[in-house]
């Protein structure tokens, strides 16, 4: 495994693609940066200012360094879940290990980029994130396939531990290409008074993504939020779910999905909140806009109550853009196309992701650029 100290050694073209997916090339406004290209980690560095507060390295290296880390592997995700987990269990090329030290508050986000530049590659990674007690951090992770690569697949296992009183906001941005098969398998464990926010943004066309990340809210007063901003176009198949298992006393789950489907894209948005603590709360919101008749959009919310006192609700709406909204904006001198584009941009509102202002502005830029370009 080669590891470079300077990002300049990462080809310029790759950095440019990564930038479009939220990766800051110079890493100045990041607490740490991690690059895994094809089957090797090429860059992993913690910003000077955050030394001692964060650990960031390849998972394989971390496994060598820490004997205890073995316990965190395959604890939340079942090795035998499906053919994809079995493949990664068999052999993987690394992945990121991120650890936010106890009580550390990381103002700048940690960034990670998983890249595919090699034709027909099946990238297999295993990521571990540990937010230690009382820590606070934002992570932005981008998965990018170089636009010249015709066909590839990505299998990624992520196991995330949010310990007592910690806050972790994890934003994943996918920029695959029209021939990528993507199978992330993620799960998180949320401890007492801890908060886990999992955001997923997918704006570029992709062949096929199927994922159903799960959060186990085992801790008392633990909270999870799953937020999705999904733009399905050019035949993309997106089957995106989120699952929250509320076991902890007073645990809470919130799920918000905004989906736009057009140009032959097929989207299934699933959500499952399973409440087994008598005072747990959950709410699921899914809104989908169908832009043309060639696309397909399905929302499947599932609510499970196992104890009386469980309070879980959902609201879902799928359909076309409201004519009333379009006309209203046209009375404000907008053309029909401008009105539609404004409604779409507003619909994919990044405010739902709960990000700090600077990061929010960056994600907004990515979302709007993709919406404009299509």
């Amino acid at each position, binding site marked *: 495994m080669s590891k470079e100290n300077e990002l300049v050694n990462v080809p310029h073209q790759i950095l440019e693609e990564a930038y479009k997916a939220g990766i800051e090339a110079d890493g100045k406004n990041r607490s740490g940066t991690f690059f895994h290209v094809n089957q090797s980690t090429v860059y992993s560095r913690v910003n000077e200012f955050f030394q001692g507060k964060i650990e960031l390295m390849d998972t394989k290296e971390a496994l060598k360094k820490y004997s205890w880390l073995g316990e965190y592997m395959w604890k939340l995700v079942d090795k035998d879940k499906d053919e994809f987990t079995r493949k990664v269990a068999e052999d993987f090329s690394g992945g990121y290990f991120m650890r936010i030290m106890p009580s550390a508050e990381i103002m700048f986000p940690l960034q990670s980029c998983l890249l595919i530049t090699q034709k027909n590659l099946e990238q297999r990674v295993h990521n571990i994130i540990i937010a230690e007690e009382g820590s606070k951090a934002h992570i932005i992770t981008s998965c990018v396939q170089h636009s010249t690569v015709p066909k590839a697949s990505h299998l990624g296992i992520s196991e995330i531990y949010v310990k007592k009183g910690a806050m972790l906001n994890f934003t994943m941005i996918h920029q695959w290409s029209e021939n990528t098969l993507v199978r992330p398998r993620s799960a998180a464990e949320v401890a007492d008074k801890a908060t886990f926010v999992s955001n997923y943004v997918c704006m570029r066309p992709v062949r096929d993504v199927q994922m159903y990340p799960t959060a186990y809210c085992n801790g008392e007063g633990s909270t999870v939020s799953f937020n999705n901003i999904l733009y399905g176009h050019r035949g993309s198949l997106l089957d995106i779910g989120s699952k929250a298992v509320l076991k902890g006393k007073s645990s809470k789950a919130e799920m918000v999905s905004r989906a736009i489907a057009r140009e032959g894209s097929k989207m299934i948005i699933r959500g499952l909140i399973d409440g087994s603590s008598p005072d747990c709360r959950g709410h699921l919101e899914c809104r989908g806009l169908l832009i043309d008749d060639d696309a397909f959009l399905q929302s499947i919310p599932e609510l499970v109550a196992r104890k009386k006192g469980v309070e879980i609700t959902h609201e879902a709406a799928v359909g076309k853009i409201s004519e009333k909204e379009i006309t209203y904006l046209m*009375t*404000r001198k907008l053309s*029909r196309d401008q009105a539609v584009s404004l409604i779409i941009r*507003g619909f*994919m509102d990044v*405010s739902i992701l709960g990000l700090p202002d600077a990061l929010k502005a960056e994600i907004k830029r990515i979302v709007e650029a993709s919406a404009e370009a299509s």
Partner: protein
Amino acid sequence: MNILEVEDLSVKVEDKLTLKGISFSLKSGESHILFGPNGSGKTTLVGALMGLPQFEITSGKITFMGIDITSKSVEERAKLGMVTSFQNPPEITGVKLADLLKLCLGKSATDAFSEEEKALIEAFRLTEFSNRDINVGFSGGERKRSEVLQSIFLKPKLMLLDEPDSGVDVESLRLIAGEIQRYVERNESSTLIITHKGDILEYVKARYACVLLNGQFHCFTEPMKIYENIKKLGYEECVACSRRVTEGWKFE
């Protein structure tokens, strides 16, 4: 000079003929008040003038500033200088009030408001709403203030205001009506204001008023006189009175 000429206009809403062959004109630089009970066709009239698609014009002609706009789109009418405020404006998720106000002013989202614009937003007590999704969770009064402010920012030649005074408190009414009047005076623009109440007449200087009943114009005189009559005698009596003018507003 007349800013608007309407000839023999009939309008259908959901297959029901709501306006039946009405003709009238609106004068440049003047405010016109339109009275009428609920369901009389006032909102239909405003919607048809603006070209909103749910109002189907089955016959007649609308001429705005000398241009036949009968078959023009909402956007074209707006660009020519016509604006309407909505009684029930839609909520649009993720579109911030500030962004819409900037669009009304012809600015892009990255442009800043001028000091004067900021002061007007503040006067309309909308500063704290600028970063909120348009109309989402706005009260009735907040919606009215937002609608009128947007209308003013669009710098129209003709404002069609559908009950800008309903559901607003006394202070807001003074503000909204005062700003409408100020805009009209400064820009020599015209208004057509639908109202049920006389209070707005204290602030908006209007010389002409009319009653719309059962899809037709019925009276044509000073606003306060009509208002007093309606209060005393009701709409039906007002229509039956001696000042009945079947042609409605007609300025030569």
